[in-house]
């Protein structure tokens, strides 16, 4: 063979012959044919390995060369260097044993290298996950290889050196290798980490290809050789300091923490005690000084606690932190309150151990999830001795002088039944409660034996007033097969004859009913056969097919077809109205105001409300139908009026005799409808569907000429559909303003008491707009840091957070009464009337709130990006009714002195209210009802109540 294009160096290791054979075969199977494999074996190595390598070489027709090197055990670097010395190809690639090259790997690397003239070509690789059954790419790889590209220096793709990206899946031009004298460090166990980073730093052009090159890399075990790993990291740090720009080394420190040390801490739960001790001993020796304090502080609280305890060599502390990582929100260790109001893990006021952000201090005993660890499980026949310890944080606990009682509870997995055992001994001390009990499993725990074979353990602790339920955590080596006890199911011992304790994937203790004796095992096998042999499988498949058929009858497509072809033929029922607000998500907004006006005047209308998932919050007297249910479609098909603020399902045509009142849900700042970029780029059928849906509107409410210019034009609404009445929902705001001016703000509406708002704190309502992207109802962090707000203004303001009706907010834990999530509240107008200051960004709420003439702050960190992406109808900064701030600090400065900040905005606010809400005069509901329901308005003396005539 002439000069090969790529030489692959493969070293044999722990995987043995099978792994070696697979790796070599993956090289020989390459679609690029000019590839050679260099297998390097230790001179004193395994004879079987040598034989396997020889056999591969014999079959390959000269494409596999076998080399040997004098190497001490474990010195992979020596073997690899031998391979590099002997390589003849244009490019050289190094594979660990067991790793596989994808079929087109060499072709992709060689093509990219030749096209770009790069010295180093890197691609993606994946590694085995925990149990070795699946593969996964490291999480940072996606961003690094987002696009194929060539860079002149590694600093243009810093991820290559920051993470251990170049440990496999890359090749080097052999000339560059020789020119820079690149070799693996033979005194280093993790030499691959250093080699890749060093190569990236010294060679010229680097090509990145977005192709997967290597699969089946072994999962790195940070615990096996922590000292070597840390040494390799240290040397890479030296390279980065010498070759890279400022800050790269620090970035690598942070990556090292996240990629190596945090997973190591997490893995403690699964390791036996001896290994935990060994690792922490090594860590205490090599870790101090390895990563900087600053890097450590960038980690989330529990993670940095774990790493700090690892550094200190505290095996039990690390284990505790690992539990806290795997069970978010659990108090795993005692907390101490520092003098400055900060909360620390364990004792001491190391800033790394500061866990104030977890918010445990704001919750009390009974609300907190406490860590309860089983320390002893000793089975003696049917009797089991259990002992453990429950952690109490410093600030709260059971009543000190009340008698403590507790019981263990074993619950079947589906939660339908439980057996209880009293706990004999409870000893309380400053940091927790130690407990010990003896239970008679055989007699006390009596399952049926079928479909209730797994039982989870938990403990309930009571102090007479509060009770705290805790899961029982256990180390994975606490129980084994020897700890079994006899079991006595009600169906007899053939259903199962032993209780086998085990630790679940979520680390808590559970019992499993197992079969050990011959009768039980035979019975199990028979049952298994009966439920799994071919006729049984066929029955199961048939049932599933029937279920699919049944589900199809409930699908929207089918319902829409039935609606279209059958329900629409039904006659319209005079006086029937269907109301819907925000696609059934709430009972509020203008449809509610219209509905209440109808009820108040006692019009003889038959009103039906649609709800999406829960009827909670809808008025008890109203007729309710679930959105998309058959009754909903029936109601829509027969209704004389449709009243809605967003849109009844687009697929549903409006019956010919029906009047559709579209109240709409807000004036527009961002571009809407056919002005929206996304809509414009849709294809013709999609746009026609939208236009057809919009053409159903018979009446469309507008608040000002701004709405006419924007919304009406964007949806191509005819002039005769527009009702210039303002929004019925805003009548309440106009009334509230009149009341403010006449009587003042106090007493507050009754809602204040419901939400527990004290009169001495002002109310700030934060109502950001919907950010597109992601699925519906995604929980996302707020742009405003509610915890910081509470810390700074907790004694002055109460923050009400209202997420958009399409999404839910995710709030941090804050002191009680400082931050209240009102996303679930149905009526925004009530909240607006309550708020003293509104903080929002681009939400249409600002147009409504302006009617109240109260201060508004526009907190819009991403104003320019948002306006550029979504497009806007006007310049917010120019017309804003209040200060527009870009950062949280600016916002806090404004909230600190609200009066001063508001002084300059009174006139602008009035102008804003006039421009965007000129038609809101407080009588919208009446005007709308007069216009739309005109033919049902009866003279006052003959009026009946709305519910009459059912």
């Amino acid at each position, binding site marked *: 063979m002439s000069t090969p294009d790529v030489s692959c160096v493969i070293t044999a290791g722990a995987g043995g012959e099978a792994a070696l054979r697979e790796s070599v075969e993956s090289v020989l199977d390459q679609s*690029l044919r000019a590839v050679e494999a260099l297998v390097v074996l230790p001179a004193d190595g395994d004879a079987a390995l040598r034989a396997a390598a020889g056999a591969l070489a014999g079959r390959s027709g000269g494409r596999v060369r076998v080399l040997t090197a004098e190497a001490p055990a474990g010195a992979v670097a020596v073997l690899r260097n031998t391979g590099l010395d002997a390589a003849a190809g244009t490019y050289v690639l190094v594979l660990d044993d067991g790793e596989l090259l*994808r079929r087109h*790997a060499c072709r992709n690397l060689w093509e990219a290298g030749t096209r770009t003239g790069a010295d180093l070509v890197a691609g993606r690789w994946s590694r085995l996950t925990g149990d070795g059954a699946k593969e996964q790419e490291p999480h940072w790889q996606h961003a690094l290889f*987002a*696009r194929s590209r060539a860079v002149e220096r590694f600093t243009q793709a810093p991820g290559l050196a920051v993470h251990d990206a170049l440990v496999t899946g890359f090749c080097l031009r052999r000339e560059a290798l020789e020119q820079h004298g690149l070799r693996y460090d033979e005194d280093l166990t993790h030499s691959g980490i250093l080699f890749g980073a060093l190569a990236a730093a010294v060679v010229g052009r680097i090509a990145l290809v*977005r*192709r*997967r090159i290597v699969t089946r890399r072994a999962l790195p075990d940070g615990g096996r050789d922590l000292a070597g790993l840390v040494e390799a990291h240290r040397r890479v740090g030296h390279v980065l300091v010498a070759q890279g720009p400022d800050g790269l080394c620090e970035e690598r420190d942070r990556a090292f923490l996240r990629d190596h040390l945090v997973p190591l801490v997490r893995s403690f739960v699964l390791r036996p005690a001896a290994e935990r001790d060994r690792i922490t001993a090594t860590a205490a020796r090599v870790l101090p000084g390895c990563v900087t304090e600053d890097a450590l502080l960038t980690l989330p609280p529990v993670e940095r606690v774990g790493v700090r305890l690892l550094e200190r060599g505290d095996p039990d502390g690390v284990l505790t932190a690992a539990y806290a990582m795997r069970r978010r929100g659990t108090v795993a260790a005692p907390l101490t309150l520092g003098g400055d109001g900060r909360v620390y893990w364990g004792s001491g006021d190391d800033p790394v151990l500061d866990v104030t952000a977890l918010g445990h201090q704001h919750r009390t005993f009974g609300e907190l999830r406490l860590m309860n660890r089983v320390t002893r499980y000793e089975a003696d026949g049917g009797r089991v001795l259990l002992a453990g310890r429950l952690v109490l944080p410093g600030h709260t606990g059971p009543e000190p002088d009340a008698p403590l009682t507790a019981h263990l509870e074993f619950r079947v997995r589906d939660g339908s039944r439980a057996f209880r055992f009293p706990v004999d001994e409870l000893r309380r001390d400053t940091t927790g409660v130690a407990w010990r009990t003896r239970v008679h499993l055989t007699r006390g725990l009596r399952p049926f034996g079928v479909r209730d074979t797994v039982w989870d353990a938990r403990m309930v602790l009571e102090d007479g007033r509060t009770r705290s339920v805790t899961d029982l955590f256990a180390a994975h080596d606490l129980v084994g097969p020897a700890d079994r006890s006899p079991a006595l199911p009600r169906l007899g011992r053939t259903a199962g004859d032993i209780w086998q304790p085990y630790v679940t994937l979520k680390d808590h203790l559970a019992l499993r009913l197992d079969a050990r004796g011959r009768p039980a095992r035979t019975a199990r096998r028979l049952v298994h056969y009966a439920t799994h042999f071919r006729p049984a499988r066929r029955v199961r498949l048939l049932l599933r097919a029937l279920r699919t058929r049944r589900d199809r009858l409930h699908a929207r497509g089918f319902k829409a077809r039935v609606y279209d072809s059958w329900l629409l033929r039904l006659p319209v029922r005079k006086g029937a109205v269907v109301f819907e607000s925000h696609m059934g998500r709430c009972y509020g907004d203008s449809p509610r105001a219209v509905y209440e006006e109808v009820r108040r005047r006692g019009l003889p209308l038959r009103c039906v409300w649609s709800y999406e998932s829960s009827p909670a919050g809808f008025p008890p007297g109203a007729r309710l139908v679930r959105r998309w249910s058959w009754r909903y479609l029936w109601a829509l098909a027969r209704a004389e009026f449709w009243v809605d603020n967003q849109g009844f399902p687009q697929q549903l045509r409006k019956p010919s005799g029906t009047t559709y009142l579209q109240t709409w849900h807000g004036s527009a700042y961002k571009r809407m409808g056919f002005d929206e*970029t996304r809509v414009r780029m849709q*294809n013709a059928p999609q746009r026609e569907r939208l236009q057809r849906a919009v053409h159903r509107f018979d009446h469309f409410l507008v608040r000002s000429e701004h709405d006419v210019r924007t919304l009406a034009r964007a949806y191509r609404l005819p002039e005769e559909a527009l009702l210039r009445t303002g929004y019925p929902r805003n009548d309440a705001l106009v009334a509230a303003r009149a009341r403010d001016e006449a009587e003042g703000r106090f007493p507050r509406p009754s809602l204040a008491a419901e939400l527990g708002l004290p009169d001495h704190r002002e109310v700030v309502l934060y109502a950001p707009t919907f950010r597109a992207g992601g699925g519906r109802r995604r929980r996302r962090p707020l742009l405003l840091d509610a915890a910081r707000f509470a810390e700074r203004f907790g004694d002055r303001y109460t923050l009400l957070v209202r997420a958009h009706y399409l999404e839910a907010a995710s709030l941090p834990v804050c002191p009680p009464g400082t931050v209240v999530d009102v996303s679930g509240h149905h009526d925004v107008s009530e909240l607006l009337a309550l708020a003293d200051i509104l903080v929002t960004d681009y939400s249409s709420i600002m147009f409504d709130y302006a009617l109240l003439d109260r201060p508004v702050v526009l907190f819009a960190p991403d104003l320019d990006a948002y306006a550029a992406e979504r497009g806007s109808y006007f310049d917010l900064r120019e017309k804003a009714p209040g200060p527009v701030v870009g950062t949280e600090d600016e916002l806090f400065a404004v909230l600190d002195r609200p009066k001063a900040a508001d002084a300059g905005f009174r006139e602008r606010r009035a102008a804003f209210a006039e421009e965007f809400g000129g038609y809101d005069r407080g009588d919208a509901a009446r005007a709308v009802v007069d216009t739309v329901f005109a033919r049902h308005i009866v003279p006052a003396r003959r009026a009946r109540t709305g519910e009459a005539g059912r």
Partner: protein
Amino acid sequence: MSGSREVRDVFIVSNSTDELGGVTGWTHRTARLLSERGHRVHVVGIHASALKMALPEPLGHPVTALYPAHPPTPWAPEGAWDRLRVAARRREAARVAEKRRAVARLSELFRTARTGGVVIVSQVWAMEWVGEADTSGLRVIGMSHESYDYSRASHRYRWIKDHYANLDRWLVLTEEDADLWAGDGMDNVGFMPNALAALPDVPSPRREKAVASIGRLTDQKGVDMLLDTWALVAPERPDWRLDVYGAGEDEADLRARCTDLGLDGSVRWRGRTDDVPGALAASSVFVQSSRGEGFPLALLEAMASGVPCAAFDCAPGVREIVRDGEDGLLAPAGDIVALADRLLRLTGNPRMRDAMGDRARTAVQRFSEAEIMDRWEDLFAFLER
């Protein structure tokens, strides 16, 4: 990679030999170019088409259609009753037999190739036949002439995944599309841009105050958005005209919309043109407002004439051809305000127009026929390594 220019047997297999459409044009042009380089090219279409494209006579390469007309689609019985229909079963059996004959014919063609032969499958549907034919000793290269997103939204996505996964190599139009496919698990994907047909001898003088748009008047080309854009531009540039070249099903609607917008004075409907360089010579700016594109030839042609472009950044192919701010201006897809802004910049600044036009004419030559043919030959050699 250059240097190994041996003469090869090249088969280009498309859906149809003479169907009206971009890929047919591409097929015959590539066939001509490869023949000119000395390769023995054979164009194979699965079927001959009813709606024919005007092809130059003589073609200079043999053309074979496996079926005289579009072959029937496979029959999938719906429900038990349908299975009993004898006529349908007979038709299906006939279809299968006919397909077997077509595959045999294809195999026979392929067997005439000498070593180093290449099969280029320009459309994925043709793989139904090529995949079953005997291609031993030949290298099969698949192609997809559309962007990843466009394929993703269509049934062709599944076909590509099924048929192209095991090929030696298959090609999309741009590296960005190739990356998207690679991220989707297709490791054997490469990219090959379309070639620019010809470089006009003289660039447009760029003296006429006219903006040109060339393309079919269909929804995909987004001329409705162009009119909205022009409604923003026209008041600022009363002396400029918009020339809309092309014909299509939406013409009447678009003309009506133009009248509604009051643009009749500044928009000229030029109809379909065969003299693209001539049309470009009479304009100074080119505009494209498509909803979706692959590797738009119209942009290439405009740039070759030295006419700077303003376009919606609707596909990787557009970004690949126009380097924003350097040899043309791009606007976020669908953002008519931004596109109007680009047009105002190009129409308002003659110096920028000239600089960009000249740069465009130079830059677009990286897609010249000679360049692209070199890349094809390099690819043939690469697949033999």
